[in-house]
């Protein structure tokens, strides 16, 4: 197992503004590494440091064992990057963009480009200003993977894509990994990441709050129980139970996130005479939301 990306105490500040603080993680070859966080958490800042577009304030980052700032040419030859806010030259067509990147990368064989264009139904002929966001995003996907990079760094890659294209993109990611590529997938779309990623890191307010495998996170994830009552009930008795968090209380309906045994919850609920109860299995979304909402909530130190 080879380390492809390594970040150690990686910190980036913008004057008095926080960027990211003391971020540590590693990405090994052949994995899809999910990088999750709400808007403004520091995902794009981290990615700009990985790509060498930005300089760290302190700490270190390596890609293929190289510092991506001084070794930008070598690193960029081996990576593909889809930025979160893709900006294309509005008056140029997709073909101009693709030809430009292919020339600089010294690509002669365009078979894979043609395959990608056909597969994602990319419009390469019209000026990009006349294209929808989804169609511009498809050009960004082609630019990111057309040279079969060893590491693909994707920042919100399915933004603007319709569900069919999102599925196609998911298949593409799996194919790239099956041929030896490593994928760093940044997103705030939990479903997308947990479907494809093997490991996940969650960043919140510039700090990494957890890094673990999706399976381990799922094991820790809370179950969800929803009760319906014939009258308005006070959620406080539920909130006082250890391992229970009241996610929503809407008069006659209460939604709980449960980490411990279910018996204490059922005993409290039985006294209130519930009309109905729905229990869902371990919900990764809820775990992510817990991390997003409150870093201190059930934060396992060993998972950092």
């Amino acid at each position, binding site marked *: 197992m080879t380390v492809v990306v390594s970040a150690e105490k990686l910190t980036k500040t913008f004057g008095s503004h926080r960027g990211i603080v003391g971020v540590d993680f590693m990405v090994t070859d052949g994995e899809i590494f999910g990088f999750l966080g709400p808007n403004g958490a520091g995902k794009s800042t981290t990615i700009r440091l990985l790509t060498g577009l930005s*300089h760290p304030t302190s700490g270190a980052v390596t890609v293929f064992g190289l510092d991506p700032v001084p070794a930008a040419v070598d690193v960029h030859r081996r990576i593909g990057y889809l930025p979160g806010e893709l900006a294309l030259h509005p008056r140029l067509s997709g073909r101009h963009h693709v030809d430009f990147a292919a020339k600089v990368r010294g690509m002669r064989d365009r078979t894979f480009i043609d395959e990608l264009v056909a597969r994602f139904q990319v419009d390469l002929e019209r000026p990009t200003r006349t294209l929808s966001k989804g169609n511009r995003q498809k050009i960004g996907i082609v630019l990111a993977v057309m040279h079969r990079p060893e590491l693909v760094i994707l920042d919100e890659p399915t933004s603007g894509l319709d569900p069919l294209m999102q599925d196609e993109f998911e298949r593409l990611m799996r194919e790239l990994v099956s041929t030896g590529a490593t994928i760093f997938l940044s997103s705030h779309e939990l479903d997308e990441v947990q479907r494809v990623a093997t490991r996940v890191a969650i960043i919140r307010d510039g700090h990494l709050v957890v890094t673990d495998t999706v399976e381990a996170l799922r094991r820790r994830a809370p179950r969800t129980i929803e009760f319906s009552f014939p009258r308005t009930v006070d959620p406080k008795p539920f909130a006082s139970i250890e391992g229970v968090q009241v996610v929503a209380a809407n008069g006659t309906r209460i939604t709980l996130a449960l980490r411990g045994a279910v018996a204490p919850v059922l005993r409290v609920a039985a006294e209130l005479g519930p009309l109905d109860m729905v229990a869902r299995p371990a919900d990764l979304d809820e775990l992510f939301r817990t991390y997003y909402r409150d870093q201190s909530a059930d934060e396992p130190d060993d998972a950092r």
Partner: protein
Amino acid sequence: MRADIAVIDLRLRRRALLSYVVGMVLYALVIVVLYPQFKGDTSLDQLTKNGSTLAALVGATGSLTSPSGWLDANIYENFLPLIMLLITVGYGASCIAGQDEDGTLSLATILPISRRAVVLQKAGALTVQALLLAIATMGCILIGRQFDLSFPITHLAGLSLGVALLGVDFGLCAVAVGSITGSRGAALGVTAALAATSYLVSSLAPVIGWIRPARYASLFYWSVGNQQLANGLSLASVGVLSVVGAFLTLTAVAGFRRLDLR
């Protein structure tokens, strides 16, 4: 060295560049064609007689009815440098800082190409634009030889090189400020202020004694403000303009290497 970035930038700028060049060519042709009507008008020379500061402010000094005086006062000391700087400073401010602000710079900087090469290609595109305008204008002035405008062709070629280098230098100044600050506004503002000061110093130096020593610090003086059409562009001028350009290029490379990109 490849020129893919320069080519794509020139493609993006071609409409604006063509418009500027066509406008300049039309203006230069009008000035050339009008010369026979003004060459005997001695009242014109009264404007610059006794060292008029007003005339100096608009770039007119010495005889306005001589071929070189007519072209200097109407084209080479004011209007052509203005159009030149609009092109080169505009591009200089947008090619690094402006493209970074609108996010398109990362299309190039994420490719396997060094930041030094990016700056050099941008400097190349800048030079092509400056030369295009200078050569197109020179072509029009050469037509003026049919309209009583007589002057040595080598002097005209030297002056055209001077005005092109003037544009390249101020364009590179905008590139450098943009590379250091990442701000298109700062690049435009700082360079425009420097260019305006440089112009004032050069144009007022002949008529205001205490400004005269400062003319050596003005790029306008070395390029268009020392009667280059009458006397030719000196090697010293070429040297100063080239050294300044090289210094600004190195500054831009150093600044761009340290710049955090979007």
